[in-house]
């Protein structure tokens, strides 16, 4: 079983290739603006390091949101094109779920991505990574209010968010994420699209 993992939903490119339960190549690198230029060359580098070619892949897992719209589109377009060319399925996953899975703690988990102006993309998962509060684009205070009856919550984030809870940095455990979705058959690549969790300003203004 050969799986390619791609997450471009933040300023970071997180990508890796898992072959038979082993992470054989991976990258975690920050890209402020050159992601569109660097993403594919970096993925190619992963194939080379893993000593396989795209046609060897069985499966692609891609983060379809939430986060940077442009970033997500870059990762998804690469994933869709590879999967379409190879005639294989894609398993689209939430980046917030990936954050929860990567975090080893016995508490509730609150993955957060800064969405500016007091808003975050966030969710709450229990220690077994079951959703307690679904992925939302939400005012941080609202999310905190919703979580106040839960004792022991760990926040997972790479952003500078001022919050009075135990905090962990996000460091994706690609092998764990890939294994977590081991049984997923995925969907046809044509059907994979970003989950923005947020309408465009133009749509909001027009009341659409």
């Amino acid at each position: 079983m050969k799986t390619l993992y791609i997450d471009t939903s933040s300023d970071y490119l997180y990508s890796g290739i898992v072959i038979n339960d082993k992470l054989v190549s991976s990258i975690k690198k920050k890209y402020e603006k050159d992601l569109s230029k660097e993403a594919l060359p970096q993925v190619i580098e992963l194939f080379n390091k893993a000593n396989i070619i795209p046609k060897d892949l069985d499966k692609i897992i891609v983060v379809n949101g939430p986060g940077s719209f442009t970033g997500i589109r870059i990762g998804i377009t690469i994933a869709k094109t590879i999967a379409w060319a190879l005639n294989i399925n894609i398993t689209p996953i939430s980046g917030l779920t990936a954050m929860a899975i990567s975090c080893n703690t016995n508490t509730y988990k609150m993955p957060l991505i800064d969405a500016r102006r007091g808003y975050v993309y966030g969710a709450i998962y229990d220690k077994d990574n079951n959703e307690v509060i679904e992925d939302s684009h939400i005012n941080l205070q609202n999310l905190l209010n919703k979580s106040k009856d839960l004792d022991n919550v760990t926040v997972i984030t790479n952003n500078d968010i001022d919050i009075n809870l135990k905090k962990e940095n996000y460091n994706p455990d690609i092998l764990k994420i890939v294994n977590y979705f081991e049984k997923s058959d995925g969907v046809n690549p044509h059907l994979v699209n970003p989950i923005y969790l947020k309408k465009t300003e133009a749509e909001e203004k027009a009341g659409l």
Partner: protein
Amino acid sequence: MKDIYILGIESSCDETSCSIVKNGREELSTSTSSQIDIHENFGGVVPEIASREHVKNITLVIEDCLKKANMKIDDVTAISITYGPGLIGSLLVGMQAAKTLSYIYNKPLVPVHHIAGHIYANSLVEELKFPLIALVVSGGHTELIKMKDHFNFEKLGGTLDDAIGECYDKVARVMGLPYPGGPKLDKLSKEGKPTYKLPIPLNDDSYNFSFSGLKSAVINLNHNEEQKGKEINKADLAASFQKVAVTSIVSKTKKALKDYNINNLIVAGGVAANSGLREALIDMCKENNIHLSIPPLKYCTDNAAMIAAAGYYAYKLGRRADYHLNSLSTTSLQ
């Protein structure tokens, strides 16, 4: 000689398009997903929505294009891609797809400037004869370009403010015509007479254009008449605007052809669909013994066939990009 098949991808604005063109001249298939209906709700292209639509459609148009041509990507020689200029979020969807295909199928990647694409739409009609003057009239450009040979572009002049297509769209909007207004304004002008007096734009010795003064004049006229409670004759106003705009473009074009002693003119871009401009250019070229090429309407607006056609000549010239190729929202023609 072996036939060369180029698969072109275009996503610079609100059309996701894929084409296969044989030897730079013969369109085998095109699949385009247009977003006009969606952006109509907003009175113009909304960049974020355009990007979202491109991601939805990109693999679908590629698949559809290949199906129509009854080909596989293995059968194509190279992949050409619009790298700019355009909306950055839109451009980079096509770019990621093109780079990925190029990698997986091990096909050369040929970068194409969007305006080179508009110009080479003409080669889908007839072989380009050099030297020539290319008149580029589109939503974002109004330029006169001299070409001595393939991909040899010398810009003689361009607009100092609004592009002609942009000007059409803005004037149409003020006159209450739905988006995209250019074609509708064109149609309306045929029902009227040029009775309104409007200023002639930038009537000087350069090859430059200026349309913002004309635009303001139409907008002010429309406004003043409304204030006076007078019914404006929209068809007449449209005809007046079109006459002045077309006259300005044709006279500068004529001057360039004359000054450089060139007798081939090609027209490119969405506004080449304009009926008044077409008629006036045909007349001017007949009078001056100029060979004129204007592509059919389907090649005037954004489409991937023109990117594949340009891609062929770029490929023949050895132009290649590696997987680090990036999209550029602004970039000069080369």
